[in-house]
């Protein structure tokens, strides 16, 4: 088993090198086959690893000694256990489907740019695999940085458009702010424990001071805030929709943004030992979930709605982590990967059919012309709204039940967020697929269902979105049936022991579930009926205008942070650079020129002058001799 571990990240790396270096020589079909094939190979190896772990064989495989100074040893090691093998399956599985989809979606690109796309996508999968497979925080950080880089490269894929480049820069800078927190956390961890390996850190976590653990976990959360788009570092995600739609599906729905959740789930014992950090995580997650949901209610770009929905669902995952429902959060990561990737790929299918139109006000009635896209998108919407028996219901409800145990208010606000989720998703669905077509005549003629390379991934993901809930059927329905909880139990064992979990009251749990499902179903039906009859075409007004303008947060950041920084940089440029340093450097040159001009006058060419200078010099020497020899 251990021999196979390094194959998982190796395949995408090879794909990246081949597609990247040979991009001018390869044909588009060959590029697509290599790019998707390596991910399929990784998926097969991941399945083998998963089966091994299920049979009890997991563990740490060390490749080589990476960093070693003094008493600190940081090996380049992979840890394959329940948590990482699960994430491996999701990343490579969903990744493969998205690569397959991209071969058709990106067909219009020229072959070297097509190869560039696949090279970047493979590099991304490689980095993400490093992130989840690392056995210590440093390897995770390498993957962390790598996915941030690939996100930048892929958002700015169509680099000729300057707006897209700005969006890519914004994503990268905000990620970096989070990375600073992560890095300081690693340093603090190293200074407190002398090691960054998971095994070492988690084994003795109980012996550290609570203050140390609190600070470390808060700093790690700052990193997660940047990577997983929580308040205040979330504004890059909607702008990241500038990239191609499969990129949005893979990076900004299924994988990169879940890196923060993976990190906190991995460090669960640290968070359980620091209740303050857990509270911060939960509150931030809840606030983000609600905030983003309100913005999504009034967005008119199909991808922006899904982007804000992603931010909101990530908030739910952090809420889950913050109230101790680690399995629930990981479960939601999985189901979210399935239905969000499905929704994004469906949106891509719509955009493809509408010839790059993304405004839902110009769509409508697409259900008849795009049947597969229509049905799969509908299934995705039902899943995300949390309506049973689809997967979203099981995972979201697990989080909400745990939230209720911690604090009733969390549950109430969580249900409010779920209501808004159902509402805006069905608003999106109804405006896009139902009613009458509102676009131009040309667009109407070109409407056609997407090719199989695009529809097959949609169907696979739809099946997963529908049936993945079976992995985590809660106790109230069938005894001992929560397969995922049993599978992940070893990873969260220490945390669950510390946090005494009261046995849930079955009747109360059914009541809670019933209320949240009823609310979601009600909002879904209301939105369906209202928006299929009369789509929202007018400009928003009042509170709606504030929501449509994203609560003016971007403008706020611009005024508070960007403008002062630019002013500071202009000031430094003026006074330090131009007046200060340039003045000194040019001044030296000018001084040399001036003195040389003066010295040149000494050489008048007249003999008399020279004799005078000789005599003056001699006199000076005599005087010095006379006065200094005393």
């Amino acid at each position, binding site marked *: 088993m251990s021999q196979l571990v390094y194959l998982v990240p190796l395949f995408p790396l090879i794909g990246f090198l081949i597609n990247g270096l040979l991009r001018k020589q390869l044909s588009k079909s060959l590029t697509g086959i290599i790019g998707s094939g390596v991910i399929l190979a990784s998926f097969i190896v991941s399945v083998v690893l998963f089966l091994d772990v299920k049979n009890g064989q997991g563990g740490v495989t060390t490749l080589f000694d990476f960093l070693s100074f003094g008493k600190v040893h940081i090996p380049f090691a992979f840890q394959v256990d329940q948590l990482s093998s699960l994430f491996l399956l999701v990343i490579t599985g969903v990744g493969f489907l998205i690569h397959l989809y991209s071969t058709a979606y990106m067909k219009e690109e020229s072959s070297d740019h097509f190869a560039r796309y696949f090279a970047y996508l493979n590099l991304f999968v490689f980095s993400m695999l490093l992130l989840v497979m690392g056995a210590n925080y440093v390897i995770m950080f390498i993957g962390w940085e790598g996915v941030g880089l690939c996100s930048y490269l892929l958002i700015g894929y169509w680099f000729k458009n300057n707006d897209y480049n700005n969006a890519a820069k914004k994503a990268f800078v905000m990620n970096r702010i989070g990375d600073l927190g992560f890095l300081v956390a690693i340093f603090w961890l190293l200074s407190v424990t002398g090691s960054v390996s998971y095994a070492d850190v988690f084994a003795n976590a109980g012996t550290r001071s609570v203050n140390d653990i609190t600070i470390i976990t808060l700093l790690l959360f700052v990193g997660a805030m940047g990577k997983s788009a929580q308040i205040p570092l979330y504004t890059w995600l909607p702008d990241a929709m500038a990239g191609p739609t499969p990129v949005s599906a893979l990076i900004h729905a299924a994988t990169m943004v879940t890196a923060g959740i993976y990190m906190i789930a991995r460090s669960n014992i640290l968070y359980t030992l620091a209740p303050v950090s857990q509270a911060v995580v939960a509150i931030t997650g809840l606030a983000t979930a609600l905030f983003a949901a309100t913005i999504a209610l009034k967005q008119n770009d199909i991808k922006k709605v899904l982007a804000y929905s992603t931010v909101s669902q990530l908030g739910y995952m952090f809420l889950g982590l913050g109230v101790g429902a680690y399995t629930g959060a990981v479960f939601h990561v999985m189901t979210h990967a399935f239905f969000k990737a499905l929704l994004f790929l469906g949106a891509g299918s719509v955009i493809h059919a509408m010839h790059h139109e993304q405004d839902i006000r110009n769509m409508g009635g697409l259900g008849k012309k795009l049947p597969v896209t229509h049905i799969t998108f509908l299934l995705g919407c039902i899943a995300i709204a949390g309506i049973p028996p689809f997967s979203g219901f099981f995972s979201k409800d697990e989080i909400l039940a745990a939230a209720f145990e911690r604090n009733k208010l969390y549950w109430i606000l969580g249900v409010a967020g779920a209501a808004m989720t159902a509402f805006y998703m069905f608003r999106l669905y109804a405006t896009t697929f139902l009613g009458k077509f509102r676009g131009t005549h040309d667009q109407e003629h070109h409407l056609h269902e997407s090719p199989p390379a695009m529809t097959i991934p949609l169907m696979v993901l739809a099946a997963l979105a529908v049936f993945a809930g079976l992995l985590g059927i809660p106790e109230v329905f069938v005894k001992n049936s929560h397969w995922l909880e049993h599978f992940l139990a070893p990873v969260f064992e220490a945390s669950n022991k510390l946090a005494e979990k009261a046995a849930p009251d079955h009747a109360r749990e059914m009541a809670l579930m019933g209320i949240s499902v009823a609310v979601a179903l009600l909002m879904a039906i209301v939105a369906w009926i209202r928006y299929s009859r009369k789509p929202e075409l007018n400009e928003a007004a009042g509170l709606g205008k504030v929501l449509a303008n994203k609560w003016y947060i971007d403008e706020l950041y611009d005024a508070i942070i960007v403008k002062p920084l630019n002013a500071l940089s202009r000031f430094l440029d003026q006074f330090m650079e131009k007046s200060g340093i340039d003045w000194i450097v040019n001044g030296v040159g000018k001084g040399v020129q001036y003195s040389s001009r003066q010295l040149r006058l000494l*050489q*008048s*060419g*007249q*003999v008399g002058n020279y004799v*005078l200078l000789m*005599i003056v010099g001699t006199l000076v020497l005599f005087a010095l001799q006379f006065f200094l020899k005393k």
Partner: protein
Amino acid sequence: MPINYYIFLSLALFCIGVVGVLTRRNAIIVFMCIELMLNAVNLLLVAFSKMPHPVTAAGVPAGTGVEGQLFVFFIMVVAAAEVSVGLAIIVMMYRNTHSVDVNFLNRLKH
């Protein structure tokens, strides 16, 4: 006669010579002033040779008192050689520029 008088006279002659070298325009006058400087030094050397000798610690007089006058001979020889070369240069200068004005000698600049 106290030796101071000789020293003052020699100093005065030397200074007159220096000033003359610096300020006079005619090259021949400059040469004369150079000679004046050399002769002032000769005078000084001869005067010092006639001074009472310094006595070393062992009571033996240092030197026999004629080194000064001997050096004057050397200076005179050198002065003579230098004058001959210098006058030759002045003759060449006159042939080229038809004047003996030292201010015309700024060709060193080019």
